[in-house]
């Protein structure tokens, strides 16, 4: 019952009295965005929104990480991999009405490259460094006419294009970011199918259809509200009650009841992650490869997946998920074999000393409940004679301490950023990332060499070979017990159409519609 007096405000958007029903999608999620300036943040909740406000030069595929044209119609790489030329789409406008063109792209790159770790946290991770940094990958970005951009690199970078397809590198309106400066994140302007309306902190972000969107017939929805429900159960409740239309972060345990509910549908996000048990190779007893292998045999991955991923995951044998090219199908991995584990432990002369088993305090897509997985592992280890004490810290502390190598064994995981093997193998297990993301302190000359080579190898097939070799060695050396590649679950009302969850976790909602 809308009151009629609201018409007096003269607001054309007033919800009251409209004849045609607006198509509003309410997307329930676990946390609020930090900022809506995609380059200023690293968190998925921000990307979820900015994915729909901004567009990147290159897009990922609908449900994978293959490269598709985005704002750039086409691109060409030089043979030596040191320069790329992009042909831009014409006639695109930013939400503020300004034109998208080569100059805008250049200004965006300038903005990114001139930043620092505080303001552009992701840039350095993906492109080596900022203007003037030794490690910087990008040398220059220049416009060649109105709709052509040339990017020159300092050294070849194999995943360069994949990086460009990542949400943080959405192209923003230069007029807007020059005007708003730091405040740009509160009032983002891109070329995306939706434009920003309002943001109630820790509550909801509202975006609405961008009428001048360059792709005809899109977006289908009039409005999207991203609403925060920190509790998984609260979010599901809201979905069941029809207060929201889509919910991510569904507990695996609720999967069956959602499938049984005619009002709801279950979505599975293609897996691009790995959950693992890291074994710090510098700490006894895990400095002994036999012990590490023993632990690999000791853990009943399938049972864990059945219980705590509710089957919504795949047993992992490699440090990267199968969807990523370069995955080595042939690695045998370790079966659940407690007897063998015991034997290996004996062989290794394990003294029965109690280890600390670190359990993640927070749920992550790759590990819905670290505590419980830890409990299950504790039991598995106990069965082969290894006593483990479960330890947990608050998330920030956990990461910091693990990074310093203070854990004996720890649960952790990784979600791929750009769908490249490098983003898993090199980032997580190369010696140059010790003290950073290589929490196991694993060091191996052979893999190191393989991975460095792969980084500059532009030929896909050759590259994959290098990675496959590396995976074999890693399996043998066993710095990890790869546990699972989980399929994060989402759920929606039955009338939601065309929603295809993306493996990166940032979903483009332009095609989503209601029945």
């Amino acid at each position, binding site marked *: 019952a809308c009151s009629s007096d609201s018409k007096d405000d003269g607001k054309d958007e007033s919800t009251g009295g409209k004849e045609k029903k607006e198509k509003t999608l309410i997307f329930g999620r676990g946390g609020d965005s930090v900022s809506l300036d995609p380059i200023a943040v690293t968190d998925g909740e921000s990307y979820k929104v900015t994915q729909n406000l901004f567009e990147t030069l290159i897009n990922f595929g609908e449900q994978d990480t293959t490269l598709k044209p985005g704002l750039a119609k086409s691109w060409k790489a030089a043979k030596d991999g040191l320069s790329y030329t992009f042909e831009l789409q014409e006639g695109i406008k930013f939400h503020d009405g300004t034109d998208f063109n080569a100059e805008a792209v250049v200004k965006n790159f300038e903005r990114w490259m001139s930043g620092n770790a505080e303001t552009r946290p992701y840039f350095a991770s993906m492109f080596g460094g900022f203007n003037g940094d030794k490690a910087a990958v990008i040398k220059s970005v220049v416009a060649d006419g109105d709709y052509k951009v040339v990017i020159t690199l300092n050294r070849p970078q194999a995943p360069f294009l994949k990086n460009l397809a990542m949400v943080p590198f959405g192209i923003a309106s230069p007029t807007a970011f020059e005007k708003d400066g730091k405040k740009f994140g509160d009032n983002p302007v891109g070329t995306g199918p939706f434009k920003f309306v309002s943001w109630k902190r820790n509550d909801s972000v509202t975006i609405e259809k961008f009428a001048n969107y360059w792709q005809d017939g899109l977006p289908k929805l009039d409005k999207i509200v991203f*609403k925060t429900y920190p509790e998984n*159960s609260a979010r599901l409740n809201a979905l069941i009650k029809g207060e929201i239309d889509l919910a991510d972060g569904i507990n695996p345990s609720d999967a069956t009841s959602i499938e049984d509910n005619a009002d709801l549908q279950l979505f599975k996000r293609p897996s691009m992650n790995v959950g693992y048990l890291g074994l710090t190779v510098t700490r006894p007893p895990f400095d002994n490869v036999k012990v590490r292998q023993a632990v690999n045999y000791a853990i009943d991955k399938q049972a864990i997946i059945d219980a705590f991923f509710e089957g919504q995951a795949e047993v992992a044998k490699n440090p990267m998920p199968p969807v990523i090219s370069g995955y080595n199908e042939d690695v045998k991995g370790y079966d659940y074999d407690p007897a063998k584990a015991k034997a290996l432990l004996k062989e290794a002369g394990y003294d029965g000393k109690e280890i600390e088993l670190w359990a993640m305090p927070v749920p992550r897509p790759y590990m819905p409940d670290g505590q419980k997985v830890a409990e299950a592992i504790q039991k598995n280890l106990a069965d082969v004679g290894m006593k483990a004490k479960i330890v947990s810290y608050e998330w*920030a502390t956990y990461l*910091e301490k693990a990074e310093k190598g203070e854990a004996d064994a720890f649960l952790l995981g990784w979600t791929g950023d750009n769908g490249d093997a490098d983003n898993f193998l090199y980032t997580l297990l190369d010696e140059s990332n010790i003290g950073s993301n290589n929490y196991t302190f694993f060091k191996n000359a052979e893999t190191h060499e393989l991975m460095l080579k792969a980084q500059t190898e532009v030929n896909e097939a050759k590259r994959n070979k290098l990675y496959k070799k590396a995976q074999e060695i890693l399996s043998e050396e066993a710095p990890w017990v790869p546990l699972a590649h989980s399929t994060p679950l989402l759920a929606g009302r039955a009338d939601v159409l065309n929603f295809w969850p993306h493996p990166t976790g940032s979903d483009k909602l332009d095609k989503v519609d209601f029945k």
Partner: protein
Amino acid sequence: MLHYIGKRLLQLIPVLLGMTFIVFMIIRAIPGDPAQVILGQQATKESVASLRASLGLDNPWYIQYFDYLGSLFTGDLGESMRTKVAVSSELWPYLAATLELALCAMILAVIIGVNAGIISAWFQNSWFDYLAMIIALVGVSMPIFWLGLMGQWVFGIQLDLLPTSGRDDARNPVDPVTYLYVVDTIIHGRFDQLWEVFKHLILPATALATIPMAIIARMTRSSMLEVMRSDYVRTARAKGQKMFWVVYKHALKNAIIPVLTIIGLQMGLLLGGAILTETIFSWPGIGRYIYEAIGFRDYPVIQSGILVVAFIFVMINLIVDILYSLIDPRIKYD
């Protein structure tokens, strides 16, 4: 009176200063590097180091402390390390959400608690008394997070009567002005939304109200019982006054004074202690704001957030003291 208020406010300063210091020290003692948290798992070592430097985290703690104090004195609560938004502007919506919830809970708790207490005392040892006091005891013994979840399950899911989370209907969102949605909807004249806002308030407010309600009911009862035995109540009855007036005029005014203290204390607790309720009901309140900030090691937010909550707590106490003097002519603050 004004003089007294001024003096009380002055006395606040050392308490708040002490608070800032303790908060500051506790927070710095929490292991975990804000820079690392902000940059996330993916960050490189160098970028973490440079972020630390630009956030001023490399300075010795006392420099950081005095920097913080210095800006506090100019009324600057700092800027969130994570969102880069000034805490002062970011804080209000959260605080408003909590205030609205806490006030609703408190109104509920006071109305029901005080009356239950009065009636229980009036009809001491009646079935109502026993029942009310059993409920009150169970009420104080209840973990509210459990109660909240059970409430969601029963009233939200099974009976499907009430929304289980959030402050408003996402399909018909409130346009915030003051961020107190009850006020906002009235300002906009949107009574349909007002109704929604009320429906959203019911479950969390009830959950939050349970403990204070029980405490207030018990306190009111015992205070009333004492007052009912007093000579002046006997005098009022000896005049031939109706029992209702004896209770609600003579006794209540006297009995309410200790209850006020409890109400003030509980209100303070609700403001900062509603973390669990806010989490369970997805209520974007200050408790969760600070709690999450602890998770992110967002120092300025934690420091200023706690400071603001503490300030309100102390202010509530001051208001309670002033109320005393309004109720009781014997209390005079010069």
